């Protein structure tokens, strides 16, 4: 009973949060709603007994990813409402609803729930983190290492891409300077486009 209440509550909250994220025109609202949604999702993980995953969800998503977005947003002018040109929103909603219906139909129909055997059964004697640790560093060691390398590469890429011209601070520069700088930088772009 408790599980059901928790599920419906968090389901409603998550859907609401993500709907706000998708629908709002304020970048800051979207970011906040997103972060809240992430935390609500971790609740599902806790309900499902995936404690470690839940913790990771909170740390990585709300801690790291959202913080990254927040930092990233400092580059942009976020106080301004984002003006987005929309063309035929009806198509978008029809497609979304259709996709949802189909996915739900597929997931609910009893084809996938049968014939599944547990390769790595959950050991009740051990805690979730312990089991995950065991499997992660034995069976999934190679993917884990690859993921580690990927993260490293992504980190370097992020730094290199975003870190160029870090010495110039857009916030401290005068408007004219920024205009000049973006003009000189935009120049090769327009030349390229002329080809």
């Amino acid at each position, binding site marked *: 009973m408790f599980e059901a209440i928790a599920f419906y509550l968090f389901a409603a909250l998550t859907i609401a949060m993500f709907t706000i994220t*998708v629908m709002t025109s304020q970048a800051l609202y979207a970011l906040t709603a997103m972060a809240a949604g992430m935390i609500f999702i971790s609740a599902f993980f806790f309900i499902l007994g995936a404690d470690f995953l839940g913790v990771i969800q909170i740390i990585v998503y709300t801690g790291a990813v959202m913080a990254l977005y927040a930092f990233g947003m400092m580059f942009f002018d976020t106080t301004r409402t984002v003006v*987005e040109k929309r063309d035929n929103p009806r198509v978008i909603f029809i497609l979304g609803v259709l996709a949802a219906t189909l996915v739900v139909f597929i997931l609910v129909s009893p084809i996938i729930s049968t014939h599944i055997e547990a390769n790595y059964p959950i050991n009740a004697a051990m805690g979730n983190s312990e089991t995950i640790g065991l499997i992660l560093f034995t069976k999934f060691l190679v993917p884990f290492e690859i993921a580690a390398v990927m993260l490293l590469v992504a980190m370097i890429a992020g730094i290199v891409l975003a870190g160029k011209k870090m010495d110039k601070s857009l916030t401290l520069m005068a408007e004219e300077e920024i205009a000049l700088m973006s003009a000189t930088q935009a120049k090769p772009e327009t030349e390229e486009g002329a080809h």
Partner: protein
Amino acid sequence: MEITLAHYLVLSGVLFSIGLIGVMRRKNLLMLFFATEILLNATNIGFAAIAHYHGDLTGQMFAFFVIAIAASEVAVGLGLLIVWYKRTGKIDLDIMTSMRG
């Protein structure tokens, strides 16, 4: 009232569709990234639920790697976004038409 796997999968599907709507509807690149995060999280719920109801940890493992991918995606994507913004001063999708066929 028993909560079954189907409940979670339906929730996952609904969230995924919300993400899809966001992907289609957003013209702001940053917002587009948010929508993709929603997509990834929706699948994560599905993975965790299947792992739970079948007593198999593989689902959790997958969710774990998905989070790792999401993190790197954000790092690279945001970096590219910043570069783009520095060059053009805009992060509007409609101006990115250099790949016109």
